């Protein structure tokens, strides 16, 4: 008898919240909601394929991406040995595109990890220890006063061109954005009753932060991380295009575009293909990010955290 009202209210709750999986949390539930979200799922699949290409690059690439063949310069698309033709130095375009995915995805992923490590730490400190908040956030604001690409350029000027330096420069650029998102989540979560309860039960700062607050910040962090990944891919290409990113012999998509610019008139395909590759990766990241935001954080719809 006494269970009846509870069951009824749970049923009405379920009706309000929609399908049952929406109530569950955790990676498996996320995956299930992702499958129901067509666009996001398409993005996730495209991204998985790109990751597989990057991992299996030596198996897929028909040729060595940096081998110069003076005899086979500027072969057109559809050549029997070079499916997507060759560039000015006779290097195989298809192989360079395949290996380029390693640079783009690698830089993107590393930037997301590093900027999140820094940003989560700063955001946590700032949101949890209110005494630090003002100072830390003013510093973050100051960093955000620099246009991202300009700050990255300045840092690259100091560090010199290399792939690791790109990751460092871009992580410095995106850390304040992560810190802001984490801070605002922490600010709202730390006031919740269950956190208060955990503290009353004698939970120390570390326990409260890592067991009770951080797990509830995961949704906005994941959404933001997807967009940072997307922007990092574009920024890496931009820096390499400007000649201050990956060193020129590295087969990165930005470097390919930088070289292709000089022969735009005669060899337009050399400029189009790497751009399409960048677009596919960034588009799938954006689709995934938009979808994840709809699934995880319905209130954030159509607002973007990163420039």
């Amino acid at each position, binding site marked *: 008898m006494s269970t009846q009202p509870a069951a009824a209210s749970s049923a009405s709750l379920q009706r309000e919240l929609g399908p049952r999986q929406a109530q569950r949390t955790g990676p498996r539930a996320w995956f299930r909601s992702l499958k129901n979200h067509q666009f996001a799922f398409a993005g996730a699949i495209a991204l998985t394929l790109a990751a597989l290409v990057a991992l299996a690059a030596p198996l897929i690439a028909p040729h060595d991406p940096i081998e110069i063949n003076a005899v086979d310069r500027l072969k057109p698309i559809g050549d029997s040995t070079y499916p997507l033709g060759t560039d000015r130095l006779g290097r195989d375009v298809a192989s360079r595109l395949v290996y380029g995915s390693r640079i783009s995805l690698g830089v993107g992923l590393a930037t997301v990890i590093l900027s999140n490590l820094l940003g989560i730490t700063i955001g946590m400190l700032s949101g949890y220890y209110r005494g630090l908040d003002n100072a830390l956030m*003013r*510093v973050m*604001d*100051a*960093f955000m*006063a*620099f*246009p*991202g*690409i*300009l*700050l990255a*350029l*300045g*840092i*690259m*000027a*100091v560090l010199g061109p290399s792939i690791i330096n790109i990751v460092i420069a871009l992580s410095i650029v995106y850390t304040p954005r992560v810190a802001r998102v984490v801070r605002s989540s922490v600010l709202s979560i730390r006031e919740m009753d269950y956190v208060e309860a955990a503290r009353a039960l004698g939970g120390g700062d570390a326990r409260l932060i890592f067991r009770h607050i951080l797990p509830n910040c995961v949704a906005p962090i994941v959404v933001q991380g997807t967009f940072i990944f*997307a922007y990092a891919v*574009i920024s890496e*290409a*931009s820096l390499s*295009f*400007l*000649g*201050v990113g990956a060193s020129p012999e590295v087969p990165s998509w930005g470097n390919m*575009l930088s070289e*292709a*610019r000089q022969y*735009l*008139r005669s060899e*337009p395909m050399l*400029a*189009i293909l*790497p*751009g399409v590759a*960048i*677009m596919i990766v*960034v*588009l799938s990241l*954006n*689709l995934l990010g*938009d979808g994840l935001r709809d699934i995880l954080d319905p209130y954030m*719809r*159509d*607002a*973007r955290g990163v*420039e």
Partner: protein
Amino acid sequence: MLRYLLRRLLALIPVLILVSLISFTLVHLTPGDPVAQILGDDATVDEIERVRHDLGLDRPVYEQYLIWVGDALRGDLGQSIYVNQPVTSMIIERAEPTLMLAIVALFFTLIIGIPSGVIAAIKHNSYLDQSLMLLALLAVSMPNFWLGLNLILLFSVYIGWFPTGGYTPLGESVVGAFKSVMLPAIALGFSQAALVARMTRASMLDVIRTDYVRTARAKGLPASRVYITHALKNALLPTITVIGLVLTVLIGGTVVTETVFTIPGAGRLVVNSVIRRDYPVIQGAIMMVATAYVLINLVIDLIYVYVDPRIRLS
């Protein structure tokens, strides 16, 4: 209003100090001796010492910072290492194309972004809405320099409507100046237009659902009138706040766009300075843009308070 303005101006000081500190430290973290770089390999120790002294590099770091900030406040950002010219005049000489490019790009951003967002919101969930949003998603997914390359290919190489690059100064020909920044401005503004469209659509959708809009419709006012005069006014408020952000992204983006279209602007100067490791120029340019960003945002906030009096009260 005056008190609000004063408070905002005071709050600028710490941010500007931090901005100058970041710009200063950035360059002073550089490994290696810049003087040895200027003078080359065959410089004697005495020569290096003399130049170090002339540049003030033998003083303590905090003194160097104070001198640099003091000079910067008087409009002197130091001397370029590579070209024997003051940084300030180098930047001012190249400011015109960059400002033209950023302003025309902002114009495109708003003229494309706002109407697309409004139309998408009014036709919510229609094919038009969905295709506009898909286009917006594509726009934010392509690098602006690649879009620039495609525009050059299409409009300059194949159709021949616009020059493939370069810049015609306003003093020479006004029409020529606009013609020369047209393609770069579209390349630069396209992805920002997409962001503005998404924002406008979202806030328009919120406003359309409010009671006062429903009342206006119920009174029998025509839809166009309700949407344009009643709803748009409120829906544009969040868009105003992003204009400052959009403008900085555009100014930052000129760095790449000017390279694609070989425009001799401030952005190109920064890229060249990075390649030549001309630190005073990089430092000065970065500092100037960040300061501009802080000031632009102050102006935007003031406009916002003026447009939306609710902010002032809180």
